[in-house]
């Protein structure tokens, strides 16, 4: 799995072509999210690749792109959820930003940092979504099942992280940047 970027990679503006590639990656992830991953449930919980996209963007391209990708992937996910539209966008935007800030704070990423970040950020993202939803009146999101959801999503996303981080890295910077980030 590629490591995450150093501070130098943070916050650069993306060229138009990279944005098109990023959109392509997000649409592909959305299709997989709504077709393949809904079937791959463990303890009735599926991995959340839209959340993972935000975390990956924060890891490979820093806080700004992490926030932008989180906003976009969250809005896309919201289209297929019964929870208020914009809730995932808000949570994933902040999650992508926080992941990027955490990564850019480290001068060099420790070994397996990407896996650890995917695991922790996924669990935190799920909890934040449930908390934000409960604040908006969706009280059922805060059930005893939340711990199971956090654990399974974190584990599933960690397994998928190498692929998704690579895909997002390919979109935002190509192989050159990915090498630079390793």
């Amino acid at each position: 799995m590629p490591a995450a970027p150093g501070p130098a990679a943070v916050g650069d503006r993306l060229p138009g072509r990279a944005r098109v590639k990023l959109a392509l990656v997000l649409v592909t992830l959305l299709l997989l999210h709504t077709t393949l991953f809904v079937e791959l449930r463990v303890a009735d919980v599926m991995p959340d690749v839209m959340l993972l996209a935000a975390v990956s963007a924060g890891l490979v391209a820093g806080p700004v792109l992490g926030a932008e990708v989180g906003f976009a992937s969250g809005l896309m996910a919201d289209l297929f959820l019964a929870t208020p539209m914009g809730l995932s966008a808000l949570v994933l935007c902040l999650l992508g930003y926080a992941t990027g800030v955490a990564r850019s704070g480290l001068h060099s990423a420790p070994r397996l940092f990407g896996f650890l970040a995917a695991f922790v950020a996924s669990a935190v993202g799920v909890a934040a979504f449930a908390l934000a939803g409960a604040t908006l009146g969706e009280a059922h999101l805060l059930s005893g099942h939340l711990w199971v959801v956090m654990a399974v999503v974190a584990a599933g996303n960690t397994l998928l992280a190498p692929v998704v981080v690579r895909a997002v890295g390919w979109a935002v910077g190509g192989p050159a940047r990915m090498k630079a980030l390793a």
Partner: protein
Amino acid sequence: MAVYRRSKRHRFLVFLLALASVTVITLDYRGGDQGALETLRSGAQDLLAPVQSFAGRVFGPVGDVVGGITDYGDLEAENARLRQRLEALEGDRLRSEAGERERRELLAILDLDFAGDIPAVAARVVSSSPTNFAQSVIIDRGTDDGVDRGMPVVTSAGLAGRISEVSSSRSVVQLLTDRSSAVGARLAGSGVNGVVEGRGGGTDLAMTFVAAQVEVAEGEAVVTSGLEQSAFPAEIPIGSVRSAGAPPGDLEQRIAVEPVVDFGRLELVKVLQWAPRG
């Protein structure tokens, strides 16, 4: 200095994105079921509908394999439990045949099938919803077929849920097992009313608001109450009482209801084109 300015600009951008998210949430709340965002949602679901149908056929078996692996322990226990139950039922079968014949005759005379003469739309389950916080499935019928939000969804066994989201060609069914699902219900034996609530997938439903002093028999049928303004017609089977009892000091019973519908194997359902009577 440049780094500071850049960092400030970044934070401002994130603030703008967060503000945009909050605005979308507000618009969604204000727009209700008819707002522009709901139209956008329906449009997106319709757009993806053909892909989901195709992928459901392709990836469905993959899900079965994963489910089989992860639920292996449960399946073994369930298998043993079902064997025991089968033996008991074999004995009951002969005794119940006479009663069953009589019931069929009564149904034929009184037309008491739980759907009655309510018009219905048959639908196929395409996939489950892409969420970890709701028990819901997507069916291949929408407003073009006469399906509307709130309509009850049944299988041949009984109540499965209700329509929670609808687009022109697809609908989302909120299952009874969903944690935010609540159905007005009645204990068929005693006639006592209560509310059946979801407790998540793979677990029994819970019947609440039944007083501690009410006698509830194990195996007693639970059906929809169909009280005035109820979201469901009366007498649709929901399940049977698996256990009941009130902890000392409690005014209410804790009743576990085993659903009649097998939510893990939903394939064909019927949407009842029924609206609550005022």
